[in-house]
């Protein structure tokens, strides 16, 4: 196991090889395509469609979907104030993805840094870090959200803070478990015998081995955080209007459930498609990053008559 990893890593992979491996798994390919679309909406949406998404049109209140007489933006219908749903979903992508990305990045960096310390040092600090993780893990995230909502003002940044804090234990525990195992391996001990400093051992020898696991977890966690944010917004203790996220749109449509199902349906579908894409992509990533399984994708690329650059 150790041997294959060491031999497999130095081989440089071109972007073309990655693309070929992505094409080999069709579901992952479409997942990546959809995520790209979501990312583009997040980056350009508010700039292109910001005005359209907030323009009220009381004649078009709860306009049904699949009717383009008002314009293409109304193809998914309109909300209770006659604002086009498609435009709103595109614009809401920014907040939704930004919150999730911020929370995942923050918790991953803090959590894995603490995990490295907790796993590598045998001192009391390690014990305290783990206990802190336990406390955070059992602290009800709802209460944390309400506290932040009342103490600080409800803003996108504060929701990121709440979600980041609640996700720290995931990275803390994973990193610590990985470090505990890796630090006993031969190459780490060899490095120590050669007189490498603790910092060099941690960042140069341990972290690179633990990184694939952490990246896979972060991809999955992105989906989880997105769902958590939408749940908070749905309960009314997350993002507050006039800011919008997909979860908030579902919540806002709830009162029109019996007369206009599309208000809640489309934003929910956007959430599902995004999390599904992330899950599919993370499955693919797990195979790509695992030297023992990567051949499955490389072989497939060749069988389809596409020379996969990675294997040449």
């Amino acid at each position: 196991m150790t041997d294959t990893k060491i031999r497999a890593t130095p081989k440089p992979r071109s972007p073309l090889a990655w693309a070929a491996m992505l094409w080999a798994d069709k579901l992952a390919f479409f997942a990546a395509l959809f995520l790209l679309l979501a990312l583009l909406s997040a980056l350009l949406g508010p700039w292109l469609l910001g005005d359209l998404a907030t323009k009220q049109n009381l004649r078009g209140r709860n306009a049904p979907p699949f009717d383009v007489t008002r314009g293409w933006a109304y193809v998914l219908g309109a909300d209770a104030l006659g604002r086009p749903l498609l435009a709103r979903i595109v614009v809401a992508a920014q907040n939704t993805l930004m919150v999730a990305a911020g929370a995942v990045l923050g918790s991953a960096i803090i959590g894995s840094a603490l995990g490295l310390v907790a796993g590598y040092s045998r001192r009391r600090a390690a014990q305290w870090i783990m206990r802190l993780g336990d406390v955070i893990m059992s602290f009800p995230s709802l209460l944390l959200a309400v506290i932040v909502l009342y103490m600080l003002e409800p803003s996108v940044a504060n929701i990121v803070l709440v979600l980041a804090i609640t996700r720290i234990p995931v990275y803390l525990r994973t990193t610590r478990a990985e470090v505990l195992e890796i630090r006993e391996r031969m190459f780490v001990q060899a490095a120590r015998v050669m007189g490498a400093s603790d910092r060099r051992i941690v960042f140069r020898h341990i972290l690179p081995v633990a990184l694939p696991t952490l990246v896979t977890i972060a991809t999955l966690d992105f989906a989880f955080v997105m769902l958590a944010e939408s749940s908070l917004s749905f309960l009314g203790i997350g993002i507050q209007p006039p800011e919008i996220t997909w979860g908030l749109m579902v919540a806002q449509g709830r009162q029109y459930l019996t007369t206009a199902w599309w208000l809640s349906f489309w934003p929910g579908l956007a959430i599902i498609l995004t999390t599904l894409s992330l899950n599919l992509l993370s499955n693919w990533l797990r195979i790509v990053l695992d030297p023992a399984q990567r051949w499955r994708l490389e072989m497939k690329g060749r069988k389809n008559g596409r020379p996969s650059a990675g294997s040449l």
Partner: protein
Amino acid sequence: MTSFIGKRALASGISLIGLVILVFFLSRLTGDPTNLYLPLDASIEAREQFRDMNGFNDPLIVQFGRYVADLVRGDFGQSLQQARPAMEVVLQAFAWTLWLAVITMTCVTVAAIVIGSLAAFRVGGIFDRLATFFSLVGASAPDFWLAIVAIVIFAVNLQWLPTSGTGTPWHWVLPVAVLFIRPFGLILQVVRGSMISVLSSAYVKTARAKGVRTRPIIFVHGLRNAMLPVITVIGDQAAAILNGAVVIETIFGFPGIGKLMIDSILLRDFSVVLASIMVSALAIFIMNMLIDIAYAMLDPRIRY
């Protein structure tokens, strides 16, 4: 074994004490409950009297000392909202959630193990692909959205099931069905992955070579050894429901601990918040113990 339980109880106890202290002080930061409980036109004197009666005028540290002193005597305080002992309120709600968790997780475990094992038996087959894809879809869907869609379809349009509340067995169908989907997707994935690696091991090949029939191979030889990682995930998912399926309980008007928790947080019913945290922590501790015991039973190599 006893020393192992003792050690674990000690670690959990320390975390719980930290948690209670943290929640006690942080929850008071969310504001004064007085205005939430008295009518808008209540006089200043009435408000003052309410604060005095509930001890909100004392310094925080005094309030905390009093809370701890009561706690030692087994008194968890009064619920402001229901004027009953907080623990009584919490235990009543917890019983509902416990049933919800038991029913849901039993269905999830049986379904995920059977379907996951069959999917793992022919990797890449049509059944495997369908099971994998649909379990991923299930694991990706936000539960509040599923709940809403389920209500529109089954309660509003078809009128087969009640929209919310409790009373008849029919009231349980939608909450259980919606809660079922995400854990089912996750556990199915784990069962499948674990079974694939077990079924390709040498002793399964030996059994097959000896002519053992398919079903005993999957469910006797394979399953027992594939169960360890599965049990961990089952535990995590059950803990999530026990901690309060807040969204589902809110949407379906289910009187469980999740709904109680969010209501008492929003209404600043501090004693109830603290009591429910302690009850869920204890429940999750007991469940983790049961999972560790299940580990030892399934794999004789594991000893504590």
